[in-house]
């Protein structure tokens, strides 16, 4: 046999071996793409999914998207029926109802229903099936500096918050008493936590989220009701006369607010519990180890503390091929069944574990969890969003109206708020 023939045979055998190997490996490994934003709790949850992906021989491709373009991008992807971009997507209760028709029901994912009562409703299809499984519970909480304020002296009312802030400011212990996001989409961290803690809401009756009941009441805006005017006046004073908050706070997202709190320049902030880990990370925060959590101070018309509790979840587009749907569901099920991973997520970020069974473990072993659970889950809850098509538009109108009131004269607040009323009413009734 000539040398050429030997070489040819060797190449044939080698090539065949390589082809068999590569086809075996291709069959064994499924590739899934996961689309999300660069938020600490999402990054922590993706780490759990990555661990299980390796275990299940799934290649997990991560697509991190900016928050500002995430919703249009995902909506466009879902409505166009594309199935080659994201196999698992981050889903938020704010738009869960809009997207439900394009998403795969996830009732068959193990532990999908292990959440607090009512938390998956915003993700329900018309026949009551959930289209999301939880990655965490997002809930705002009052953070305070434990080195400046003892637990016994925590503010119970808005007046307390102002007095404590002014005292700390006058003693030069902090530059500002309170800092929080106030710009559009950060409304929760200023206007809304106070609104909900003054027996108030965007539409009457307060705290109602059933569209039928709200429609029966005529989608009546509460934006110029006394409880709302009082809330706006509280913030106007905080910014302009009592000066417990920076005057530029109307433009702050949580980035600016968190930066000021982490720099040690403010005594209080309201942010998602998922930032507890960031605030206590010594590499990122000058107040690490000095951060406590507390219930919201309430307004003069309050009938008790109200917290907002909503789920951030993962969903799967309906248009995916069955093999990828199955692989994605298996992966999500593994994450929900991984108590260690979920506890690690809690330890790293302060984001509650998605599976409420894991809460019982934390209840026994973790004092911070017990405190957080008491603060968040014992009082009455409210959903942070409304669930109709134009909610984002209404949210923006509300935000613009309140910010306009903050930049005007105090005596004009009621009139400014009333001017926004028609647009808020129209936003809810536009598609009737």
């Amino acid at each position, binding site marked *: 046999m000539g040398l050429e023939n030997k070489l040819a045979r060797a190449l044939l055998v080698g090539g065949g071996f390589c082809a068999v190997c590569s086809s075996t490996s291709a069959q064994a490994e499924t590739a899934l793409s996961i689309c999300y934003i660069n938020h600490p709790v999402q990054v922590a949850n993706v780490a759990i999914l990555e661990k299980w992906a390796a275990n299940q021989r799934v290649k997990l491709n991560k697509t991190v998207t900016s928050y500002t373009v995430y*919703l*249009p991008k995902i*909506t466009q992807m879902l409505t166009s029926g594309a199935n080659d971009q994201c196999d698992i997507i981050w889903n938020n209760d704010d738009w869960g109802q809009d997207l439900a028709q394009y998403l795969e029901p996830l009732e068959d994912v193990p532990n999908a229903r292990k959440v607090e009562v009512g938390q998956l409703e915003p993700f329900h299809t018309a026949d009551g099936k959930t289209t999301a499984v939880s990655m965490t519970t997002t809930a705002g909480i009052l953070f305070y500096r434990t080195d400046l304020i003892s637990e016994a002296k925590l503010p119970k009312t808005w007046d307390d918050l102002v007095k404590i802030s002014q005292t700390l400011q006058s003693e030069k212990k902090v530059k500002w008493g309170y800092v929080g996001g106030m*710009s559009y989409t950060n409304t929760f961290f200023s206007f809304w936590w106070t609104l909900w803690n003054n027996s108030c809401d965007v539409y009457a009756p307060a705290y109602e989220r059933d569209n039928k009941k709200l429609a029966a009441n005529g989608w009546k805006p509460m934006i110029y009701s006394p409880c709302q005017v009082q809330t706006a006046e509280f913030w106007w004073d905080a910014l302009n006369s009592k000066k417990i908050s920076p005057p*530029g706070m109307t433009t702050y997202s949580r980035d600016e607010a968190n930066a000021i709190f982490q720099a040690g320049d403010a005594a209080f902030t309201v942010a998602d519990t998922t930032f507890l880990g960031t605030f206590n990370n010594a590499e990122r925060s000058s107040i690490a180890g000095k951060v406590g959590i507390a219930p919201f101070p309430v307004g003069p018309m309050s009938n008790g503390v109200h917290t907002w509790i909503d789920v951030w979840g993962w969903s799967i587009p309906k248009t995916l091929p069955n093999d990828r749907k199955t692989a994605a569901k298996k992966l999500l099920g593994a994450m929900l069944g991984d108590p260690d991973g979920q506890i690690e997520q809690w330890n790293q970020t302060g984001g509650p574990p998605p599976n409420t069974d894991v809460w019982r473990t934390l209840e026994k072993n973790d004092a911070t969890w017990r405190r957080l659970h008491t603060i968040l889950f014992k009082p009455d809850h409210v959903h942070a969003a409304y669930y109709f098509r134009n909610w*984002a*538009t209404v949210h923006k109108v509300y935000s*613009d109206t309140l*910010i306009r009131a903050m*930049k005007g004269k105090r005596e004009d607040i009621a009139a400014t708020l009333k001017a926004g009323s028609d647009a808020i009413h129209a936003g809810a009734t536009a598609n009737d």
Partner: protein
Amino acid sequence: MTARSTKFGVDEKERFMLFLIAPAGIVLVCFEIIPILIGMNASFREWSLVNPQRTWVGPKQYIAVFTDPVFLKMVLPNTFVLMILSVGVSVALGLALASLLNRPFFGRAIMRTIILLPLTIAPVITATMMRWSFNDQFGVITIFLSCLGLPDVAWLSDRWPSFALVIMTDIWIWTPWFTIILLAAMQGLPPEPFEAARIDAATPWCIFRRVTLPMLRPVIIVCVLIRAIDAFRTFDQVWILTGGGPARSTEVFSVYAYVLAFVDLDIGRAAAAAGIGALIMLFVGVGLYRLVNRSMEVSR
């Protein structure tokens, strides 16, 4: 005599010309004309990104935009103020810098490079840099101004300071563009008129006003035309710096259309707003184009 080969009434030379422009033509049709037609079609429909039923509604979306007080009283005035001030100040500064750089001095080459730097930075990055530089708590410029004893200004939270910052950022980005073009034009001017003016004992200011400026006028007007159209669709700086706030008071045309499309997810109304913007720009462009032509004739 050689008969020129014709096919479909097009001779060989014309066919070759068509062949050369075909790639550009195809790109233009695919990425400009067809999307514009799709957009125009969308503007006559109820078209939500979430629920794309695409119901035909006639001119409803156009009427809604034209009767929106925010569009009429805030967005259009802001857009034109931004366009006029940004282009006006940029061209003035560009002319001044070009005049300076047209003279020999030590380090001129380095100065030219430094002046060009803002143009090499993406507007998004420039706007982000400005946003943090003027941050009321940590901003380098805010702290510097405070150290000088100047009163605190809420740069990003009050309407006029934030709009001024938007204009300043736009000027910062675009002045180098005017500088480089006007400098090139200056260096191409014939020396004789300048020598004649100097023999007549004209002052430098007089030479600039009576000789340089009239000779540069066609170039200036072309630059202004291009830049004015570009300024009308400014988005990055406004979105990053103010997001159109506080309370929509710095919103310009592009931000208005963006909010409709990507916050409200209302593609139909956003397309109508874009269509109206295109019409406005068409009128402004035609006006400026006529001005250019007239100016060219005068300068000839």
